[in-house]
């Protein structure tokens, strides 16, 4: 697979993963781009020992974890201005609330749930995070439960 193909196929997935992690559009774009720079650098060394998707998600999630080192960025609006003008009216507040809830989870939970929602197999999530498959299953269940509760509480408030 060439870099161009990888970039086209995975850009959206990686971007959503980053957005779930930080809930900041500009910041997520930066992390996603950094990820693809690493992918570009590492691609010649890729040995096909794992699926290309697993490999890319590992780079992306490790890169997300490294964000702690960056100076704290003040959270901005979840959407950049240009996107806001066109699409904000059509965005369900529920989507925004979901990303906000995920970004508030502990770091590893954010990664696990984002990968799950991205339809990554649980065995692959285990291989990306280094946890056991059974562990991932339990965690996903708990995180979803937590999210459902938050959504219910949110619905009651409104």
């Amino acid at each position, binding site marked *: 697979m060439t870099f161009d193909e990888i970039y086209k196929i995975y850009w959206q997935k990686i971007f959503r993963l980053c957005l779930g992690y930080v809930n900041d559009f500009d910041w997520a774009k930066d992390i996603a781009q950094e990820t693809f720079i690493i992918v570009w650098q590492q691609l010649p060394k890729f040995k096909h020992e794992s699926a290309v998707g697993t490999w890319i998600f590992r780079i992306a999630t490790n890169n997300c974890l490294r964000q702690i080192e960056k100076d704290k960025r003040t959270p901005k609006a979840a959407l950049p201005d240009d996107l806001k003008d066109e699409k904000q009216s059509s965005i369900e507040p529920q989507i925004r609330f979901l990303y906000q809830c995920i970004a508030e989870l502990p770091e590893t939970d954010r990664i696990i749930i984002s990968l799950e929602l991205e339809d990554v197999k649980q065995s692959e999530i285990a291989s990306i995070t280094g946890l056991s498959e059974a562990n991932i299953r339990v965690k996903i269940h708990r995180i979803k439960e937590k999210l*459902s509760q938050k959504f219910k509480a949110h619905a009651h408030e409104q």
Partner: protein
Amino acid sequence: MSSNINFKDLWKQQPVIEPDMKDLVNRLHQFKQSNIRRLIMTNILLIATSLFIGFVWYYYQPKFITTKMGIVITVLAMVIYLFVYNKMAALFNKIDNTSDNTHYLQKLIIIKGKQRFLQHTMMNLYFAMLMTGICLYMYEYTSRMTMTAGIITYAVTLTWFIFNWFYIRPKTIKKQQAKLDDLISKFDGINKQILDDSHLL
């Protein structure tokens, strides 16, 4: 408890900016340039210090061995400092960012620990070498002064060194360490999330 909310559906409805190859190529270009710039900057500093020592040696023709030793030790202090700092940056390039999160975090914590140790040792070594070097260097010139002038010169220099050693050095180390300690504890915190949950099953 199962939820009626389809999180997957919501997740994927999030509008995403389109992949922008041109933007990425720009970033790649900037990335390559900044790497080259960093390499040039480090080398300029190293070459400049080496030229400086050569110039002092040649122009002032020091007679005493202490002066020559002083120059060498002082410059060596700077060169070692620069070298170790570059090495430290290189440490991070060695982390395999294609390994799984658990291993990656553990590696990161080890490297940060190494960085902490290196910074501490380096600051001490740097200050000690700089002080020794300058004291040795001064000897030839103060020996030509009167006794009183010589004593005053050394007294002033040593006072400055003591201030550096007991005030500036600990302060610099403390500042660097505080930043690293904060990072290490945050990484440890994430690592603990993983470890704590391994008893789930």
